[in-house]
Structures are given as structure tokens and as C-alpha cells.
């Protein structure tokens, strides 16, 4: 039983991290209709900024807090210099240009930080387990990720559903031309959304960094997952991204945790040991395929 609770927490933690990454991606995709493959690079830069600031200030928390405005600045620069010129072009141009950005970002990091990965040392209080119940220890850091992730998710919910900016964002996701016609400063809105996406990606990157090492190209793999999430959740929908991220986080974790034992009930041990890892890494893609067959716009697609 405690094992199941623990694995559920693991799933939530993974889901929240991916939600942060997917939220920015789905906003940018939904509102500006921009396929931004370089979103993973913002994730990577968040981690590298945090690594440098942590080394500089000797505190992970301060390092993280400094990395976020740096990421915002970077996001705004990318929007103004590159992304803005792409909105009127078609998706193929987006893919080409932002793929180019990935290559530039990876080599830029190699130039500035060198080819080796970096580890972000956690302060002692985060680097040990806390006891949720006497026989359920859980890594403090992962618990902190859950708390921060949940707080940010709530903030986004408030921002999108309760504020005027949120109304623009929702309107933008539904009908871009219309909000322009209504006299909203679309250019500013786009810069704002892109910057917000960059901050969220950087937050995901720097929170993942102590768990998975800061390295060149760290965002490239996870970006695929983020795309899976926004496709499942429906493009442009924050709610969809949240629910899809939680489902994907859960399925990935529980798949790794339970599938081997499940398969062993009807397969030989050797066969189960071979099949389980392969199957568990496939499951989220199977889920995506299933959702697409059932609803081609995703669970909460903003546009029909």
C-alpha cells in the first residue's frame, strides 16, 4: 500500500514537471499557432542558468530565483528577434527555423559551459528523505517539486480563468484574428505569452536539473513528451495540458512500477523482464494514438 502511495507521488511529481514544460508549449502553439521545437532549449537554458547562479551564490534557491528572470529575458529576446518573424509563415518554416534554434542553442551552451554535464548540488535539507508517515519516507526535493508545481498550476489556473490577461489568452487560443480586431495589442500579448512559456520551461528545467543532471540537449528528449502531452490534452488548452501531463506522468511511473509484476502473472520471468521495459516506454505513445483515434482534437481542444 505504501508502495502504491509512493509511486503515485512519483507519478504526480513527474506529471507536474512535464505540465510546466507543456503549458508554455501549448500556449505558444495555441495562441500564436507557432510550432516551437526550441521550447526544449529554453528548458535547458533554465537548468544551465540555475547551475551557474547556484555555483555563484552557493544557494540553490537563490540560484533558481535568479534563473527565472534570466529565462524571461531570453524568451523575450527570442520572441522579438526570431519568433515574431515566423507567425505569418507556415508550420514547415516554424519547424525549420526552430530546429535551427535548437542547434544554435546546443552549440552556444557547449561554447559557454563546455561539453561536460553539470550537477546542481542540493542544500542538505532538500537532500534527504522526509517521513510522510513513519514508514513512508519520501525524498524532500521531490516533495518540494510537487508543492512548487502544484502552486504554479494553481497560479496558471487563476491567471487564465480569473484575469483580463487570461481572457485575452483564452480568446487568442480560440480566435486570433478576432481579438486583434477588438483592439487588443496582439504583439504585446504574444511577447508576454512567449515570455511566460519560457519562464515555465526554465522552471521545469531547473527543477529537473538536480534529478537528471544538466547537460547539452537535455530538453530535446523531453520535448517529445511535451508534444505528446499537448496533443493528448488538446492544443491551446492549459486544463488539457494539466490533465494529460498527470495521466502521462502516472502511466509512465506506474508502468515502470507495476508492469513487470503484471506481466509475470501470465508470462515467464525472462519474457516479462524483456517485455516490460519495452512496453512501459511505449505506453504513453499508445495512449496518444488511442486518444487521437477517439478525439482528433485531443481531450480539451480549444479549436474544433
Amino acid at each position, binding site marked *: 500500500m505504501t508502495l502504491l502511495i509512493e509511486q503515485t507521488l512519483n507519478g504526480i511529481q513527474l506529471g507536474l514537471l512535464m505540465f510546466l514544460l507543456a503549458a508554455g508549449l501549448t500556449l505558444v502553439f495555441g495562441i500564436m499557432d507557432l510550432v516551437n521545437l526550441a521550447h526544449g532549449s529554453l528548458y535547458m537554458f533554465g537548468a544551465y542558468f540555475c547551475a551557474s547562479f547556484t555555483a555563484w551564490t552557493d544557494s540553490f534557491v537563490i540560484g533558481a530565483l535568479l534563473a527565472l528572470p534570466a529565462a524571461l529575458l531570453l524568451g523575450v529576446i527570442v520572441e522579438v528577434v526570431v519568433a515574431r518573424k515566423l507567425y505569418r509563415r507556415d508550420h514547415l518554416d516554424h519547424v525549420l527555423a526552430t530546429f535551427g534554434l535548437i542547434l544554435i542553442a546546443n552549440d552556444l551552451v557547449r561554447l559557454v559551459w563546455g561539453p561536460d*554535464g553539470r550537477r546542481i548540488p542540493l542544500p542538505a535539507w532538500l537532500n534527504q528523505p522526509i517521513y510522510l508517515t513513519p514508514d513512508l519516507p519520501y525524498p524532500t526535493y521531490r516533495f518540494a517539486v510537487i508543492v512548487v508545481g502544484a502552486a504554479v498550476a494553481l497560479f496558471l489556473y487563476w491567471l487564465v480563468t480569473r484575469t483580463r490577461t487570461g481572457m485575452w489568452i483564452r480568446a487568442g487560443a480560440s480566435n486570433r484574428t478576432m481579438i486583434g480586431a477588438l483592439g487588443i495589442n496582439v504583439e504585446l500579448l504574444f511577447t508576454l505569452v512567449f515570455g511566460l512559456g519560457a519562464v515555465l520551461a526554465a522552471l521545469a528545467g531547473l527543477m529537473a536539473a538536480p534529478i*537528471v543532471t544538466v547537460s547539452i540537449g537535455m530538453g530535446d528528449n523531453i520535448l517529445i513528451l511535451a508534444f505528446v502531452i499537448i496533443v493528448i490534452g488538446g492544443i491551446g488548452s492549459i486544463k488539457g495540458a494539466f490533465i494529460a501531463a498527470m495521466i502521462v506522468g502516472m502511466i509512465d511511473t506506474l508502468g*515502470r512500477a507495476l508492469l513487470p509484476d503484471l506481466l509475470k502473472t501470465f508470462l515467464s520471468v525472462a519474457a516479462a523482464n524483456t517485455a516490460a521495459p519495452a512496453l512501459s516506454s511505449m505506453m504513453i505513445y499508445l495512449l496518444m494514438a488511442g486518444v487521437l483515434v477517439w478525439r482528433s482534437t485531443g481531450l480539451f481542444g480549444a479549436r474544433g
Partner: protein
Amino acid sequence: MKRGLLASAALLGLLSAPAWGQQSIKIGFISTYSGPQASIGQDMRRSVELAVEHLGGKMAGKPIEVIYEDDQFKPEVGKQKSEKLVQQDKVNFVGGYIWSNVLLASLKTVTDDGDTILISSNAGPSQIAGELCSPNYFSTSWQNDQTPSAMGQFVQDKGIKKVYLISANYAAGKDMLAGFKRTFKGEIVGEDLTKWPDQLDFSAEMSKIRAAKPDAVFTFFPGAHGVQFLSQYAQTGLKGTIPLYTAFVIDALSLPQLKDLALGVPGAQSWVNDLPNEQNKKFVADFKKKHGVYPSFYGAQSYDTIMLIASAVEALKGDLSSKDKLRAELKKANFKSLRGDFKFNNNHFPIQNFYIQDTVKDADGNYTLKTVGVAMKDAKDAYGDKCKMK
């Protein structure tokens, strides 16, 4: 157009080939020089450079030319680069290869060429020790199963009854578990193979380990993955509760990052930096003087690759025209290996000792490894029978 490009590339290749007579000994060296595992490639390259330096830049009076190629940690890229080395650069030897999956993808390209000898400086997949063995393949490392077998023996001798196994899901990771099970006779209470190389977060597996309540955990995660595994093991509170035994997790490259996390976690290896032979003392001292850090076993095995080549080239006085003679000379392993002398098994894998290592601090306060015992003496790999070579 494409054909024209290819043709001109081929022409350029011909032009750049050195004139006959003043030929150099050409060695291609494939490793990972970019990405999160780049520090391994750097250590290997430094060791190759040191070997060339110790040889005075020459083998049998001919200049040594080493061409380094980056496999980017990907099998398909490794194969492409191997093709480039064999077909375009026409190297005499291809060395290197950290990863078993990269080596398996590249194997045939090199060994079936007929003019090129492959010497693995690290990877030792069971397939190549067995049915895929080739007269053109040599190893200056080990067969994958051997190091974990040594660890399994050590764990068995300690009287440990229940072990949980966790490893990476690729060729080497599977060999590691097979090797461990060959010598450990107790109960295996759980076994995980994690997605390689993308999975760096082991939360689900850590929770399973705790729930399975084993007496010990055995793990294989090379490079950056091992660092993550150990730090997460500590974050979850498992370190200090369930003892951890490792293969290829703790080495000179991961120690500066692991620091205290590595204390009390034994590993097994066929080379440790404190082995007392003369050539090893010189290698470690010169490496430290040049780079300020300890060399790793990856580096030591790469150094041995160059020295093995040198021994054969010297014996043939630089005449590599007869491949039969070249193979016969290589087979003798007539060189001063950093691990001490060894012989080749019928499948061209070394027959050698395996040591248990522990983490200690040296006189300057740096973390380093220390030999604490011999786990296996003159160990032969388990796949020689499946190889048709005599």
C-alpha cells in the same frame, strides 16, 4: 548532382592519401566527445595522447596518426564514423568504443573490411565474445559479464542472501545482470532494466527497491547515469539502509561529482589506479601531472589499446602487409599492460584479474580509488566455447 559530389569527395580522398613509402601508422579512435558522456571520451583521448607521447610519436620508426571520431553516444552515428575511418581514411586499426550498442552496430563494418583490425578499449558485449567473434577483433578491456561476475562473487562471499538488481536496458546492461547471476547464488528479489539512455529519473525503481526489502542492491549505470543513480539513492534515504554494490558506476570521472556519496560503495574493476606495476605508476603520475586529475579505467584501457598496437607493429618492423602475421603478433599480447601482463583467450578477450575497489581520499584530499582485494584471478570469460576460433 549527388553522384558528382560523391565522386569529387572520393577524388579528394585519393589526393589526400599520403605518398607510398613514408606511410604512417593510422589509428582511428571512436569515442563519445560530445553530450553528457563527453568526459569519458575526453579521458580516453587524453590517455591515447599520452600513450603516443610515451612512444615518442612513432611505432617502428613510422609516425603515428590518430584520427578521433565522435559517436555522439548513438549507434547509428558510431557506425557511420566507423565506415568513414575504414573506407575513407583507410586506417590500419580502429580503437575506442565505450558503448556495447555502438560497438555492435559498427563491428561488421570494421572486422569484415579485411584490412582493418578493431581493438575495443571498453565495450565487451557477450555476442562478440561468442558467436560473433572475429579474428580481426581484439579487446584491451573485458567481456561485459566479467566485472559484475567478480562483484557477484564478492557479494556471495560476504554471505548476502537477497539482492535486488537494477541496470540499463541495452546490450551491456543485460550482460551485467547475466554476469552477476553467474556467481551470485542467493535469491534475486527484484530486477529492473531502465530505458537507455533517456531515463535519468529512477523514482519508480527506488520505491520498488525499498518495498522489496533486499539485503543489498547491485547496479550498473556508466557515466552520468551512475552519478544520478547514486545521488537519488541518497535522496530517497536508501543509502545507509540498503548496501549498494556496483559495476562501472564509481570511477575517476564520476568521483569528483559523487564525492561522499561514493564512500562505502564498493565496485569491481580489472584496473585500478593504484596497481603497483612500473608502467602503471608512470601512466598515472604523468597523466596527473599533465591534467591535474586521476585517469579512469576507460583511459587505462585506451592506453593499453595503443600499446598493444605498438607491440605488434614493432615486432613486424612496421610492415603491416600480412594480416595473418599482424593478428599473430597481436594475439601474443606482448606488451606492458597497465594491469600487468595478460594473455588472450581464444576469442581475443583478456584473461585477467578482477579487483574490488573502495573510495578513499588521497594525500591532497581528492577522492580516488584503492584496491582492497582480488575478486577473481586469471578469469576467463564465459563465452569462449561459443566462439569458433581456436
